[in-house]
């Protein structure tokens, strides 16, 4: 139960000469909720995108569910990692139901009927049972993001990655998405969440990771991070985000 499902050892990622990740060491245990915070450009997105190989790291090792990923390896383990994007990235030419059912059919080999049944169930779970036949463009941002979450869940992933899932939302829709994520956190799925929602981090995270300049500068339980930050960079970051 406590073995690491994600293990990053000295992970380096460069874009040309620029090093976006400068030696990341991070272990995430099964069922753990890790929230990553940090200023813009600190490498948060790059870090989680390396986990599911949307970016390929150039140094170090990333082990997901016991198998090393990346550096030319083709890994089936990545189908165990789901991702929720800031800009939703729903497939605009498919109904909501299809969006959610597609992965299970194409990757897990379910029949359309079985996959759509699963999709119905998951969409009901995120409160969208009345919208299954709509197209993404017909939904609000908050609803679209909940579809995004259902789509990731449909693959029954062991790990869910969230890259600023509420940053593109109007303020009044942030709550509905965070509620769904909070519900999800109770189900035992491992979650790695990049967010600027400090309230969510405080309430839901098992561990908060603070990044700056491509490094993990400080990590700890939410109360440690928010009540007793040690690194000056973390302190000034918290001051800046909590002051408004």
């Amino acid at each position: 139960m406590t073995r690491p499902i994600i293990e990053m050892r000295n992970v380096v990622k460069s874009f040309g000469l620029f090093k976006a990740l400068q030696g990341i060491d991070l272990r995430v245990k099964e069922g753990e909720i890790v929230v990553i915070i940090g200023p813009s450009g600190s490498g948060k997105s790059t870090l989680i995108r390396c986990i599911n190989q949307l970016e390929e790291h150039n140094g170090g090792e990333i082990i997901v569910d016991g198998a090393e990923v990346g550096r030319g390896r083709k890994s089936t383990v990545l189908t165990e990692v789901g991702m929720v994007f800031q800009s939703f990235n729903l497939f605009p030419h498919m109904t909501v139901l299809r969006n959610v059912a597609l992965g299970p059919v194409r990757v897990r080999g379910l029949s359309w009927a079985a996959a759509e049944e699963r999709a119905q169930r998951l969409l009901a779970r995120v409160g969208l049972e009345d919208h299954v036949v709509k197209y993404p463009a017909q939904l609000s941002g908050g609803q679209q993001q909940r579809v995004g979450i259902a789509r990731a869940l449909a693959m029954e992933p062991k790990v869910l990655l969230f890259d600023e899932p509420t940053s593109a939302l109007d303020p009044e829709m942030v709550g509905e998405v965070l509620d769904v994520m909070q519900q999800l956190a109770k189900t035992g799925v491992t979650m790695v969440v990049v967010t600027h929602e400090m309230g969510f981090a405080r309430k839901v995270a098992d561990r908060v990771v603070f990044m700056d300049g491509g490094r993990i500068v400080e990590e700890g339980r939410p109360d440690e991070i928010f009540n007793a930050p040690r690194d000056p960079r973390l302190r000034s970051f918290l001051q800046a985000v909590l002051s408004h």
Partner: protein
Amino acid sequence: MATNLKALPVMSIFDTFLNWKVFIQTLPLLLSGLTTTLTLGVTAIVLGFIGGLVLALLRLYASSPLRQIAVAYIDVFRSIPILVLLVVIYYALPFVGLRLSSFGAAASALSLVSAAYSAEIFRAGIEAVPRGQFEAARAIGLSPWRRMSDVVLPQALRIVIPPITSNSINVMKDTALASVVAMPDLLKQATQAQALAANPTPLISAAIIYILILMPLVRLVGVFEKRLAVRGR
């Protein structure tokens, strides 16, 4: 003809260019030409579409040698005048033992060139699909092929409808070039009919038929473009 000399000028224009009797007489010939033109055009459009899609995918995703071949193909066939290509295929290839019918030669020339233009259109369409779509498709674990067929191409095809329709219009127009290799297309039959009837009415009729067939497509492109502009892509 001589009786017409004394008639009003406007009547003589009608008798000369839009002679009803000549029109009726030569209509069967024109219609057979039209059938050939349409068959040729549709064949070239379909082959060019398929070839263009394959070339675009090779150009974007194939590894080195294949990709370079696709790039070279596209550049060469966008540079060569269709008429030159047609003449080479029809008159030069027999010297190396490849003898095509006039229809075969014309269909080949038109499809080869159309594929090159279509390839660039498809490439632009695929590149216009937002990056997040590729990433989302990957993140749910779709294979490269499935990412294309389920997620990217359906969106790209929608984007390329107007330019692909424009290209199809060009292919249809270019079918008229096939008359130089003695293919009995609409233009060729009209010229023939003109000679037989000693009257230019068939040529005028042919011109009108071309316009009647292509103008709706031209209008359609306008409608597509307006619709895309409204959607704000």
